[in-house]
């Protein structure tokens, strides 16, 4: 469960203070599928970064599964990110010199998991993401959709409780984007909390819960009761 209380994040552009997040209160229940929409500069990416512990709020309190994570040290926050959160980025962020399998393996390596267990888990994941024949290819040899599938595989291999996706289809064409969305939604079906930041209305409307942002505030928060 993600609980934000009066979270503010202020950037300074020269003399002027920009409130990227302005006293945001938000509670996301485990297993929810939430889309965050809004024009650029509305603070939706900053909100995602704060939830993902990539960015520290200037004020406010953030409870993750009931535990205050605002004041954790950098190393402790890194541990939380490693174990609880999976990131998916618009530009994939694969390490170019590593093969698909090595990219997927990276979070396991960082966690100090023994080699034999890493290999079996990477093989399983490659299979479930239908990437087995691309395991030894480097990112440059993969298509955009394949790259994002590798990135999603990497985000899920630690079995996080939440997947945070920032414009996951922004660099993909419509058809491939839909495939990637289907993949993410399948993960949500499996019980993972899914947060998607997008400015694509059509994509955003697929979520059960739709949050609209403007000028660092939550403007609308609607739930699709049918699902």
């Amino acid at each position, binding site marked *: 469960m993600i609980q934000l209380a009066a979270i503010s994040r202020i950037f300074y552009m020269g003399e002027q203070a920009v409130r990227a997040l302005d006293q945001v209160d938000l509670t996301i229940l485990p297993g929810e599928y939430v889309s965050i929409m809004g024009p650029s500069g509305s603070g939706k990416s900053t909100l995602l*970064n704060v939830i*993902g512990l*990539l*960015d520290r709020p200037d004020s406010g309190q953030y409870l993750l599964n009931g535990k205050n994570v605002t004041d954790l040290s*950098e*190393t402790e926050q*890194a*541990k*939380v*990110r*490693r*174990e609880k*959160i999976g*990131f998916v*980025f618009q*530009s994939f*962020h694969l*390490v170019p*010199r*590593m093969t698909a399998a*090595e990219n997927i393996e*990276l*979070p396991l*390596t*960082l*966690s*100090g998991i023994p080699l034999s267990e890493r290999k079996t888990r990477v093989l399983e994941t490659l299979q479930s993401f239908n990437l087995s024949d691309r395991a030894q290819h480097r990112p440059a040899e993969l298509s955009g959709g394949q790259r994002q599938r590798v990135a999603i595989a*990497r*985000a899920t291999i*630690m079995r996080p409780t939440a997947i945070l996706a920032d414009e996951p289809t922004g660099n993909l064409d419509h058809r491939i984007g839909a495939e990637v969305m289907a993949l993410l939604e399948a993960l949500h079906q499996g019980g993972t909390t899914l947060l998607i930041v997008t400015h694509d209305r059509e994509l955003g409307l697929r979520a059960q819960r739709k949050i609209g942002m403007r000028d660092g505030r939550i403007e609308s928060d609607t739930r699709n009761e049918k699902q």
Partner: protein
Amino acid sequence: MRAQDTLLFAVKTLRSYPTRSMLIMLAMALGVAAVIVLTALGDGARRYVINQFSSIGTNLIIVLPGRAETAGGFPGAALGQTPRDLTLDDARWVGRLPQVRRYAPLNVGVAELSAAGVLREVTVLGSSAEILPIRHMRLVQGNIIAGIFENSAQIILGDKLAQDFFPDGNALGQRVRLGDRRFLVAGILAMQGESMGFNSDEIVIIPVQHAQALFNTHSLFRLMVEARHRSEIEATKAAIHETIVRRHNGEDDVTVITQDAVLATFDRILHALTLGVAGIAIISLLVAGILVMNVMLVAVSQRTGEIGLLKAIGTPALTIRLVFLTEAILLSVAGAILGFALGQAGSLLLRIAYPQLPAWPPIWANFAGIAVAILVGTLAGLLPAARAARLDPVQALNKR
């Protein structure tokens, strides 16, 4: 992240930029090799000089006529005095000192040697039979008996001269003419080669009285004295000095030098020289270190996106620092090992090219070269690694 995974990660990264890695490694390796080869050269020169000195004898004390004075000429010259000759009598008195094991007076000159129809100018040493043990010279043929050699017209030929004059190898017992005197060949020196710029294969040795008559002099060129024991060298030196001064009516007009003192001076000078060239070579290692730092800084800025990603998937700053530091250390360790091999190969080539120069790198230089390379590489990696660890993940991710 486990240590072996950190290592593997760094190795893979380095291997994915082969040109870059090879070039830094080469810079490091050349620095280490320079330290090793240059110190091998310096230390080789030191050993060469020491060997040369040892080959002219051990526990050696040399008496020279005239007082060593660096400024101006002989100090008595202004008062109308000239230094007294160092005579054979002086030598005999010195020889009676209890600390002296043996002594050999020495006159040196050039004379014409003729035998079997061959005529040639040769270097002549006039001395006693004791010159052989003092100068560590051996005979291959003949037998020289102390006490008899000095009082007879015997001659010892250098190995090469004996072969040149008597190619049949029957030199022993032959008569030869040196200047206007005739001598009986009583011994042939063993091949010894050159030492202190002096080739003992092309000299002849005759009794010192004959040499003095031949060169028409009463003064000795040198008096070589061998002390009984290494620890007595200084005492012997003082006793010799006192004896001769007393014989010269209290005039201090001889110079007594010990081979040890000369040797120690050369040893110090050449050791300082070796340290000096090692210092110069270590500067090239520092330059290599700066190169490592520069390249690592470029790598950090090139891989900003990757660092952001590593942070996003939960890598603590400490791990990121370690990964980059490991890369720098690996580069310098590999460079140091390569440089060690290059340095050893270089020293070997030196020894092959100049067989008389014992160009072995000193052990401390091997260690110093490797240690400085690794230390410099590690220090050079600290700043880039810290910079990578400090990067803000959000900004780093947005950079690409």
